[in-house]
């Protein structure tokens, strides 16, 4: 049961009064891959920040792996949900690659040997095993995105939540990142504008528009519904 996300009637209002999410319900099953699409400002990022308790619902509930997101469960849930932010320069806040990949395991209070083992394994998984001692600032965007994924893989997450994983990448780096994501067998929820990525990788699509869920269904059905896509400012791949 660790691999599921349940969002029930989630409404979130920013302190300034802006309603970013209105009555959003969504459920992601074990090993399911769901794409979250919709125009900028639709509430995608706000929703993602709810999935590991950085934001808390104004009303409604979020449940991860059967556990409600509360202060008591927060440590466990943050280890289960690997959240990869859009800009890797926000995700990689240590000067050195190693320290960023080790950050999560260290805060899980794992012993040093286990931390090192996990760092090696995570960097290996994203094909960056030779870069542990490199300075993040010197990496290319594609390399940074890979390391950013490694920083959550080292925590052994059950669920990967990614924000715009392919944004800004050149075609080659984009393709190699898609292959990397495809090789990972995990529950995955990804916000993206990249409709070709959606077609290649995801079995289900959720359209979020104007703070609400506008559509939710199998990728084939959604991408073939031209009228629906146009209504929400999207394009078929």
């Amino acid at each position, binding site marked *: 049961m660790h691999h599921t996300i349940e969002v029930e009637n989630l409404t979130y209002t920013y302190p300034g009064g802006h309603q970013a999410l209105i009555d959003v319900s969504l459920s992601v099953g074990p090993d399911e891959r769901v794409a979250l699409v919709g125009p900028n400002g639709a509430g995608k990022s706000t929703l993602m920040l709810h999935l590991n308790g950085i934001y808390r619902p104004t009303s409604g509930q979020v449940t991860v792996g059967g556990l409600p997101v509360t202060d008591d469960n927060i440590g466990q849930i943050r280890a289960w949900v690997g959240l990869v932010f859009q800009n890797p320069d926000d995700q990689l806040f240590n000067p050195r690659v190693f320290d960023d990949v080790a950050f999560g395991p260290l*805060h899980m209070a794992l012993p040093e040997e286990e931390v090192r083992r996990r760092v090696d394994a995570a960097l290996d998984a994203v094909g960056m095993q030779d870069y542990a001692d490199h300075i993040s600032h010197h990496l290319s965007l594609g390399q940074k995105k890979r390391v950013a994924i490694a920083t*959550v893989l080292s925590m052994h997450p059950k669920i990967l939540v990614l924000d715009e994983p392919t944004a800004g990448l050149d075609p080659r780096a984009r393709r190699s990142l898609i292959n990397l994501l495809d090789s990972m067998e995990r529950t995955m929820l990804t916000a993206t504008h990249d409709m070709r990525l959606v077609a290649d990788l995801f079995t289900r699509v959720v359209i979020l528009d104007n703070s609400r869920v506008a559509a939710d269904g199998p990728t084939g059905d959604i991408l073939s519904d031209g009228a629906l896509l146009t209504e929400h400012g999207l394009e078929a791949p």
Partner: protein
Amino acid sequence: MIQLQHLNPTEADTALHRLDPRVKLIVALSLILITGLMPSGAFGAYIALFALMMAEAIIARVSPVLVVARSLAVLPFSLAAVTLIFTGPEPYLAALPVTGWPISEPGLVQCVSIVFKSLISVQAAILLIATTHFTTLLWAMSSLRIPGVLVAIISFMYRYLFLLADEAARLSRARDSRSAVPAGSPVTARSLIFRARTTGRMIGSLLVRAFERSERVYNAMLSRGYTGAPMQIDPPQLCPRDVLIGLIPVLIAASLLAISLII
């Protein structure tokens, strides 16, 4: 204008590069301290210290020319000590033409001593940073009891410094490319305010972006279990061999100090 370029550690893998960074940090500080304690006018000792620095540079395979050239960046500051030449006591060597200010011998000695000591000190600092990566220095600092919060702040600063510097450079180019007042034109009070306003707004926008980034980074930290306390892998044990190696230059410098105080 002092033009300094950020120095990266050299690629070589020498005994000095491998030395424990805690030892290197303390050795560099000790050498600077000893240099500072050297009496004024002990030029023989200064030359010996300089030779010591150059020997270290050669061992570390850092170009001595580079070390000396970079250390010359302190020279503009020497202006602060130049006054000593004209305000020092007798005996006077000569008087400056036109103004007639007397050139004091002790003042001159004192001034030259300060400049020499300063050059040697900055050379020690250059050798430290040329053989040690900044991230290594950071953990050395925290294991030497510099408060962890401060070290963590410095680490963040180092991480985002180049990113924001790039941003500042972009802003600066954008400003220059559409500036109503070209860089070389005469400055009037009005144009001064105009320039300050443009630059001030750029600084403001850098700060706003820094704030916004810090929020996103904070979220990224929270997502990975951050609870407010800086954490890192325990540093390795200090190896006695490294301490012994570190003692060599310190002992040489200390004996130089002892000799010049006795003489």
